[in-house]
């Protein structure tokens, strides 16, 4: 078997030569654009993936079934919030279905598993949610673009808000997985002038927060910050109010913990909760008004920030297809078009940082009753203007 290694090398060189010959031929415009939308569509996190999917498909529908002038074929798949399933399905989507873009993953642990096969196949990944610090820093990749935010960002904004409002004793709760660690790190980066009395990392599938709540009762913080996506947050807030803790401490969360899906499930107990987000359904810009109205008409509910991210991911892909003149095999042209991000984002203006994560504004929202009597979010003001992330400096962006 001694000849195996040189032979493999020889074969690889031959293939590399063959591939570069193919690439040297001017790329032809594709006749359609294929998108692999791999998201969490079952289990406690399903609501998140469903909103990303619905937001994405709304953008396609409003464009008459096209993105950037090409007919769009969206292949929807469920990652079941499992890195294993996610990786296998991503492999299938990029190799067998030969999709031009991947998008949709909700959870960062799944994202880290999906990234490798996607980048290896030189397929652009447009994140509609997951923004792990790894891909923002040392492991940044030219094939990864975030149309949402880096995992720490919303939490940084809450940290600053909690500090600005003068809360001195804060308890933190997050699930024990990559985004949970990023979240609390982000919070602490901007929370100054107070004490963190407890910091809990719970199992990712935890649904009964009895133990955490009694720890809170014992620690007596004046503010509680939760990073608990989807069903986890719904359970926590219901149990938090049920245990009578809402009288003694103020609850803060990132935008998605105070979003419309959670409000729909929990109802009135959410009133008064502060949260921060890069987007809100009452943001005053034309693109957003069109999006919110169309989403409500299509699905009969208010969109969440996940829906807005799915919608923007589709718009970003559309802009890239349009500006690369549909030559999807010309990776350099697609990359350049993605990086320019020439579309009307529903969050208002944003641009890509050197690590291909957004530089954008973050807003403070509070849950109140609106003029129609609905319990929903109202934007109070801006926490950060043109805010990037803490990892961009570590990113030495490799070539395509």
């Amino acid at each position, binding site marked *: 078997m001694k000849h195996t290694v040189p032979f493999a090398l020889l074969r690889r060189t031959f293939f590399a030569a063959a591939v570069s010959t193919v690439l040297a031929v001017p790329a032809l415009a594709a006749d359609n654009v294929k998108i692999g939308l791999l998201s969490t569509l079952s289990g*406690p996190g399903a609501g998140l993936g469903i909103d990303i999917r619905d937001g994405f498909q709304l953008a396609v529908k409003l464009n008459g079934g096209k993105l950037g002038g090409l007919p769009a074929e969206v292949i929807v798949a469920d990652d079941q919030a499992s890195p294993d399933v996610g990786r296998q399905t991503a492999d299938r989507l990029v190799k067998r279905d030969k999709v031009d873009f991947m998008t949709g993953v909700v959870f960062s642990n799944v994202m880290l598993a999906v990234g490798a096969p996607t980048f290896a196949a030189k397929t652009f990944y447009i994140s509609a949610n997951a923004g792990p610090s790894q891909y923002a820093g040392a492991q940044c990749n030219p094939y990864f673009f975030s149309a949402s935010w880096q995992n720490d960002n919303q939490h940084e904004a809450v940290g600053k808000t909690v500090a600005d409002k003068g809360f001195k004793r804060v308890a933190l709760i997050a699930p024990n997985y990559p985004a949970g660690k990023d979240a609390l790190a982000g919070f602490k980066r901007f929370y100054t002038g107070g004490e963190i009395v407890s910091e809990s990392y719970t199992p990712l599938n935890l649904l009964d927060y009895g133990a955490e709540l*009694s720890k809170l009762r014992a620690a007596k913080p004046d503010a509680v910050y939760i990073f608990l996506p989807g069903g986890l947050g719904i359970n926590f807030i219901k149990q938090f109010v049920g245990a009578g803790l809402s009288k003694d401490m103020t609850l803060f969360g990132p935008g998605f913990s105070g979003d419309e899906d959670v409000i729909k499930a929990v109802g009135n107990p959410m009133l008064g909760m502060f949260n921060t987000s890069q987007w809100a359904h009452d943001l005053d810009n034309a693109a957003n008004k069109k999006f919110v109205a169309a989403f409500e008409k299509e699905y009969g509910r208010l969109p969440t920030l996940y829906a807005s991210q799915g919608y923007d991911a589709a718009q970003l892909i559309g802009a890239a297809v349009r500006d690369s003149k549909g030559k999807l095999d010309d990776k350099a042209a697609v990359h350049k078009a993605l990086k320019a991000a020439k579309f009307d984002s529903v969050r208002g203006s944003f641009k890509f940082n050197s690590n291909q994560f957004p530089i954008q504004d973050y807003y403070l929202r509070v849950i109140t009753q609106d003029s129609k009597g609905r319990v929903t979010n109202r934007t109070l003001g801006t926490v950060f203007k043109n805010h990037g992330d803490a990892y961009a400096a570590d990113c030495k962006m490799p070539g395509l």
Partner: protein
Amino acid sequence: MTGILFLEQALNGLQFGLMLFLLAAGLTLVFGIMDMINLAHGSLYMVGAYLVAAATTASGSFWIGLGAGIVGAAVFGVLLELTVLRRLYTRDHLSQVLGTFAILLMCNEAVRFIWGSQPVLLSPPDSLAGPVELLSGFYYPAYRLLIIGVGLVVALGLWGLITRTRIGMQLRAGASNREMALAMGVPVRALFTALFGLGAALCAVAGGLLGPLLAVQVGMGESILILAFVVIVIGGIGSVRGALLGALLVGVVDTAGRTLIPLLFGAVLGPAAADNAGPAVASILIYVLMAAVLFFKPRGLFPAHG
């Protein structure tokens, strides 16, 4: 302050333990009397919870939903016994494991087909959504108190049924020595169908009550089934008393472990290490408990077989 923390954890442990008992009671009788390994027992819990959620949505009342769900699950359990499970009693354990595992998968897919793969929402009744002041300054969720109350009542009723009635005597006889019970003319077949219905109803009580606290979702039966098996192994197979004690032990150890281990580790190792190691060690604790019990009492704490 620590006193309240302990008290609250004890109540949480009691609440969780009682719900585990409702699951383990049916499981241990089937295992003990028919020597039947029923991996589909968790599916009865899931189906029960879905039926309660569906009936609650349809009727608008949690109580009507709970009642209807329990009846529905009992009917489902009886039908399952009559059509499939009774054919498995005489087969070996491997066939039983394979057969009931297949039922578990089919139940999951059927539930996914009917209700979709998103969790179904079930909320506690509004009157129980808030806290109750148990001692001055100590608030406890009213809904968890209800679970404890119902769990205690059902456990008491079951204890009465098993130890004070003729049916209970026949069940105990069957669990201790099936051949002898059969020879003495115990109508094992009919008893069994009824027992299955009862087991399914208990599962639905647990599923329906835990539904608002946790989430009604596909696959919810599997994680709790493992704990139910741990409970009956600790308690001794076939013994309802063992199941109760085992369930309370597992409930208290699981809940206390999740709070106290991180506190303990925190004092020794610092908060960061405690948060990483604490939950992991706490989840191992139940299995350490099981191993310890089996080391000293290989047949469990209260074995039914002589």
